[in-house]
């Protein structure tokens, strides 16, 4: 039990909770249950800290169940607004994760990794650098850009911020999955921080994925008909 109190283990449990927590937050956008989503995120992080995945998974499941109990249709505009808000939150979490890894690179402090060397190994491997630039710094820059873009007020005729978020998140997702492949297949060490970032960028990508407003589409079809 005492081991849980060491910084490394604490970090692992926290990240495990965070990964479980962003899932209800992600699904809460479509059901307009953002409060439940945020509640789920906080509850999962706390339960992750207390007991790790053992508690975070059921808590995440509970919040998902609560969110999916909502059956009323949610207007497209509301869903779009929710998605943008959650992209902002996820990019803030991404800045925290990538920022920590970047700081670790430049300060020379080891990455807390639950007492194992996996994070050290992954982040000091040659795959963690693009020339002299640490991959974590590229991730940090990406998350900051996504954050800024997500804060630009949305208008019907202003599509480019979402378009750029989509493009950036696609690049990030592909890179993260490539790096995950390297972790599993080449380095044989999985780093919790990287898996967290991978979850965040994948969810941002899914949230920014182009969706057609069914009402606008119908109106357009009607216009075409007329």
């Amino acid at each position, binding site marked *: 039990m005492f081991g849980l109190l060491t910084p490394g283990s604490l970090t692992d449990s926290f990240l495990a909770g965070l990964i479980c927590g962003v899932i209800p937050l992600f699904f809460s956008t479509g059901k307009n249950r953002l409060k439940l989503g945020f509640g789920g995120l906080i509850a999962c992080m706390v339960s992750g800290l207390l007991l790790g995945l053992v508690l975070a998974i059921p808590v995440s499941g509970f919040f998902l169940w609560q969110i999916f109990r909502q059956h009323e249709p949610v207007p497209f505009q509301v869903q779009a607004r929710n998605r943008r808000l959650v992209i902002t939150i996820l990019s803030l979490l991404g800045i925290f994760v990538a920022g920590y890894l970047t700081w670790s690179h430049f300060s020379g402090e080891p990455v807390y990794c639950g007492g194992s060397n996996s994070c050290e190994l992954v982040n000091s491997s040659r795959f963690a650098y693009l020339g002299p630039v640490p991959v974590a710094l590229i991730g940090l820059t990406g998350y900051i850009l996504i954050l800024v873009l997500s804060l630009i007020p949305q208008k019907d005729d202003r599509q480019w911020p979402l378009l750029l978020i*989509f493009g950036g998140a696609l*690049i990030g997702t592909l890179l993260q999955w490539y790096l995950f492949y390297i972790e599993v297949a080449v380095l044989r060490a999985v780093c919790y921080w990287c898996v967290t970032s991978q979850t965040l960028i994948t969810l941002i990508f899914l949230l920014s994925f182009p969706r057609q407003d069914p009402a606008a589409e119908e109106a357009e079809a009607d216009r075409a008909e007329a």
Partner: protein
Amino acid sequence: MKSTTRPVKKKKSGLSAISPTYWLISIVAVMVALAIIVLVGLPAAGTNTAMANGNSLGDAKAPVTVEVYADFQCPICGQFDRGTLKQIEDKYVKNGKVRIVFNHYAFIGDESTRAAEASECANTQGKFWEYADTLFNNQAGENQGAFSDANLEKFAQQVGLDMDKYRTCMQQNTYLGKVQASTQAGTQRGVNSTPTLFINGQMARGAISLASFESIAGTLLRQ
């Protein structure tokens, strides 16, 4: 029966509903990601070749140096060579983090010394590691003839050495002095069993696991 003249509305669905701008962005994004992946992955091709330099393996500028004191007759050294040492090679030597240096600690018997000499003769022909692996893979008891001169010669043929040069090297005991000096240096550094490692100077006895190696070298590996 009621019939309608209104044509059935054809609903655009799935991927066809996505605007061309998104397709364009997607293609550009995929290309950028691929370019970065290629750039990140590129050094891999360059670092896998020419790793061996005499009895050392890996980048001379690697932050961690592992000096191995071993006897070719010692079975645990054989296990260590096939196990942890190969893992270290795959995981850290290839990416320039670790350099392995092999030092002789020939203390089990005459066959140990002869085998060590033979490996140095192979070294002059750039085949130290191939020869060392062959020795470890052909262990069969200690001082029972597994590493007789005849067998050592057979191994030399197996790894493709120039046999004339090899025979001269062995007959003249060219490297006997080097093997003895290495063993003596080991004793002075406190080696009394094999394998013994010095990880950036820090001693670790026995065929340690990869995890133990990582915990000793952990802080050094990030430099």
